[in-house]
């Protein structure tokens, strides 16, 4: 879904004269698109099919094994508990006066989530004591008449449904397992274990969600790999096609790159050889003509004219125009970047919970704030290292920085997995942030270097697309892994993935590529001062950009995992809720960007989005539990999707004078640097407020503040005019 946006319009057909040639150009585009979608559909069909079959088989196995196993366990527990009651009766304690039955039964029940209740009934069916939520006998329209009947039947020696005590009995409300309590040769009571009939269904549902998530991730991953592979085929084809078009137009001074591996290289060399031979023959003919001093002048002129027209001039083979280099493309960096970001995002659904596990109280800080520290420290390290990483990229080249960035990143992952205290974790997360900054900046630099100026926006949107796709995959898979393996192994897994990303980067990135200063033009403090003196820029920064980051890191990254854990959501569930954000940004974001460009209503969108993100945080105040969080994350994602690219689009309008002086890229980088204040402050701020007011009130208050702060943005609408330049870079 990300590459599709970047690729199709990249063709060389623009501005090509000649109808038939244009047709040929579209044919190649169509062909490559067809090839990719064909492969994608085939892969997709295979994967979905395999997953469906696997799920079906697992489902059947699960059902066949799980239900009887549950019954068996319930029967064992019922038997042991009945023996306990029998012993008490043996001591001469009347069955109605046995003390601590509920507590004792609860101890047996609590490790078994599928057991809804365990109850002790008298032989006449009346309920004596119960652990869990036993339905009250006789209450609610004979809800438990089935249980009473079964108990009486067992007491009277008539086993229910022809079973001996211990087998499963289906009553109208529950599946129950019974065991008699015998005393003095008679049945004095019955232990009843009530099994939650929906337990298996819920378990299956969980499993299905996990399978779906894995499938989604597999599809995205397959897409990335397919994009890479098809690019390996398509981009030489496209280069060849472009050359043919130009040759067809009579530009014979063309060459394809020689040093390309594989079939493409062979093909390229053949074509080059043919063209070289042509140029050589022309050169020989022209030389022969020139040597014939008394030859006909018109013929010589004619010959020179042909040479000029077809680019066969004296320069000969050496003068051939440099062909675009198909060996280097955005695709080289996509997969390594994807894998690395994937690795980093694995922790997102559970990091605050992991921190809580390592928690040690520090006197002067509230525990909630302490839990927010690792996210803030991470963001801070990221903010501080990013400009430095940009400078390194300029000096040492993108590949070097990308691979060097893996050292702190992998060190940080391994350290995080073995961290013994909160402060160790802080350090290791900061280390990871350094790696993350180096790698993403290097990747950005690579993309900037290999894309032509006009293709850069597309390249950057591909970059953001990879980040988002990797975020979806990482967060979702991380949640599932944490759910099954625990937190620490996930970081080790991340380290392994990062190492793989490094290996791919080493193999695939071209060592020659240097960013050429395209990424990070240095912003001086005077530039900061000038921008901060711009009231409209300041408004945009303080009321929209920074609040957006506060909400993102404080609410989504910090509060959501902790709040969801409060009511027992698993890490996998948390991961699923969190990826909703990225998915919506991917789905809605580009549309909002285009709308802002077309309509010029950027301020409207920024205002609406900021307001919406504030409202989103207040949702858990009205709608409790998982659904509230789901709705909140949805609204937040929509708010950010409609407001973030318009924020960037507004920059040329708001900072016209500054852009004229220092350039748009510098202004944008300053905006990004400053909005990171919000990223750093977000977790601490939200944590501090939550510590005082609790989750619901705290989030409502922050949300209300963000929403209220968005109102002054309305005043900016008056002075709105259409932005002149379309946006050239996407936010990260």
């Amino acid at each position, binding site marked *: 879904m990300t590459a599709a946006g970047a690729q199709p319009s990249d063709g060389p057909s623009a501005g090509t004269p000649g109808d038939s040639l244009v047709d040929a150009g579209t044919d190649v585009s169509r062909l490559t698109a067809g090839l990719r979608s064909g492969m994608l559909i085939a892969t997709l069909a295979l994967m979905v099919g395999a997953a469906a079959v696997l799920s079906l088989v697992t489902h059947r196995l699960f059902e066949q094994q799980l239900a009887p196993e549950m019954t068996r366990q319930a029967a064992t527990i019922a038997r042991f508990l009945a023996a*306990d*009651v029998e*012993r*008490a009766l*043996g*001591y*001469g*304690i009347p069955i109605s*006066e*046995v*003390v*601590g*039955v509920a*507590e*004792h039964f609860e*101890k047996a029940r609590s490790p078994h989530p599928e057991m809804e209740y365990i109850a002790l009934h008298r032989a006449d069916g009346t309920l004596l004591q119960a652990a869990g939520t036993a339905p009250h006998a006789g209450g609610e329209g004979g809800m438990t008449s089935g249980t009473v009947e079964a108990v009486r039947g067992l007491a009277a020696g008539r086993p229910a449904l022809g079973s001996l005590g211990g087998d499963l009995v289906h009553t109208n409300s529950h599946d129950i397992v019974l065991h008699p309590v015998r005393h003095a040769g008679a049945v004095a009571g019955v232990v009843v274990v009530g099994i939650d009939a929906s337990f298996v269904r819920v378990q299956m549902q969980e499993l299905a969600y996990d399978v779906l998530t894995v499938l989604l991730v597999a599809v995205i991953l397959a897409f990335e790999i397919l994009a890479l592979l098809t690019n390996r085929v398509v981009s030489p084809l496209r280069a060849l096609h472009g050359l043919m078009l130009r040759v067809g137009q009579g530009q014979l001074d063309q060459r394809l790159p020689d040093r390309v591996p594989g079939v493409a290289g062979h093909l390229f060399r053949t074509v080059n050889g043919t063209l070289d031979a042509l140029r050589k023959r022309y050169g020989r003919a022209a030389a022969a003509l020139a040597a014939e001093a008394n030859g006909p002048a018109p013929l010589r002129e004619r010959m020179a004219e042909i040479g000029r027209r077809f680019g066969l001039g004296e320069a000969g083979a050496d003068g051939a125009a440099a062909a675009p280099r198909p060996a280097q493309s955005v695709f080289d960096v996509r997969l390594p970047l994807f894998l690395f970001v994937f690795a980093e995002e694995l922790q997102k659904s559970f990091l605050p919970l992991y921190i809580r596990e390592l928690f040690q109280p520090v006197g002067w800080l509230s525990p909630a704030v302490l839990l927010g520290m690792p996210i803030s420290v991470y963001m801070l390290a990221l903010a501080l290292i990013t400009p430095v990483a940009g400078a390194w990229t300029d000096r040492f080249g993108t590949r070097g920085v990308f691979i060097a960035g893996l050292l702190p990143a992998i060190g940080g992952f391994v350290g995080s997995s073995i961290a013994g205290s909160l402060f160790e974790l802080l350090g290791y997360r900061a280390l990871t942030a350094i790696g993350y900054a180096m790698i993403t900046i290097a990747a950005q630099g690579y993309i900037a270097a290999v894309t032509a100026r006009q293709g850069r926006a597309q390249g950057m949107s591909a970059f953001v697309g990879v980040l988002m796709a990797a975020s979806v995959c990482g967060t979702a898979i991380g949640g599932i892994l944490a759910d099954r393996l625990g937190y620490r192994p996930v970081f080790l897994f991340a380290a392994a993935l990062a190492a793989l990303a490094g290996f791919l980067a080493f193999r695939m990135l071209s060592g020659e590529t240097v960013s050429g200063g395209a990424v990070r033009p240095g912003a001086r403090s005077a530039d900061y001062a000038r921008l901060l003196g711009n009231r409209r820029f300041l408004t945009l920064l303080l009321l929209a950009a920074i609040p957006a980051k506060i909400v993102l890191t404080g609410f989504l990254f910090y509060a959501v995992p902790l709040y969801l854990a409060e009511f027992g959501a698993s890490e996998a569930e948390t991961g699923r809720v969190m990826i909703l954000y990225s998915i919506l940004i991917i789905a809605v974001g580009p549309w909002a960007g285009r709308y802002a460009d077309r309509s010029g209503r950027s301020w409207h969108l920024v205002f609406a989005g900021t307001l919406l993100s504030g409202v989103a945080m207040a949702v858990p105040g009205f709608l409790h539990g998982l659904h509230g969080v789901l709705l909140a994350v949805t609204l937040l994602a929509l708010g950010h999707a409609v407001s973030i690219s318009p924020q960037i689009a507004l920059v040329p309008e708001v900072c016209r004078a500054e852009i004229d002086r220092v350039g748009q890229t510098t202004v944008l980088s300053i905006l990004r640097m400053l909005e990171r204040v919000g990223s750093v402050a977000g977790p601490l701020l939200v944590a501090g407020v939550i510590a005082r007011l609790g989750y619901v009130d705290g989030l409502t208050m922050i949300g209300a503040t963000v929403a209220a702060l968005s109102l002054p943005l309305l005043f900016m609408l008056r002075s709105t005019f259409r932005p002149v330049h379309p946006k050239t870079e996407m936010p990260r």
Partner: protein
Amino acid sequence: MTSRTALLPALFLGLLLPLLFGPSGPAAAREPYKIMMVLWRGCEDACRGFQDYLRAQDIPVDYLMRDVKQDPLALPRLVAEARAFQVDLVVTWGTTASLGMLGRHDQVDPDLHLTDTPALFMIVTDPLGVGLVPSLERSGRNLSGSLVVVPEDVQMRAIQSYRPVKRIGVVYNTDEINAVVSLERLRKVADEMGLTVVAREVPLDERGKPYAGSLPGIVADMADEVDLFYIGSSSFLLVHRDAFTSAAVAKGVPVAAAGEVPVMESNALMGLVSRYYNVGQLTAAKAEQILVGGKRPEDIPIEALSRFSLIVNMEVAHKLKLYPPLGLQRFADVIKVSGQPHAPEAKP
């Protein structure tokens, strides 16, 4: 020490013979150890536990059983006898017998007390308090032993698991250091657990001795202020257990005891105790370390059991309508179940 010199070859034979001749008792291989047991009132549970343990380990022993029948004057003669028989180990039962045979650590008289023969004591309530040893980690003497008392905090937790109580009543006599020290420890523990201790001294009679006749009156007086009476370490209350516990039960207040006698032989509801049988086994394990393992007694720390037994007197539970919680019954030794009075607990 002929037996010592015989030890090594015995071990060798013990190891080799089974290899050479297949399964054959190692007991047959060695001359039995000679152990003198100095008992206060016959071979009861601790004594049996001791002997059963060594038997189970296939350690051959010849016992010299000496029951002094609560007569301290018989002890000096036994010291001489132990020397004469060149026994490998002397085991003493109870505070008086132990002190009589071994002496206070700071007043040892080699003529009156055993010094050259390794010794183990058991069923001594407070070996530190009576001066038998200066430290529980290392006795500094040619002896070691086992503890029988259960620490107060463990006691209180056991009581709470039977029934949550807030106010603990204690009646104590001031002429026994044990009783006073035990009360102090209880107060400290109660403080930590948020419990209240209501303590009352037993008045003295004209001879300056605590007056047993006052017990029913004191108990009746205190009954309204307390949720439970606790009998810690006190020989006086142990002797007058019936008067004390019956008065409490009559007032509907349960009694918990730190020893098994008030529960098993009187009307205390419950007690968390070291079963004497188990203490005997623990002592025997130390004997094994000395005899077979060759360890020096002063290197063996004086320890309590790590697992205690909760005894519940069901007869009293019925009277008070105060039944042990179902979960507790799995671990409790329930005695005096109607129809089977004085049911003995399961014994190996």
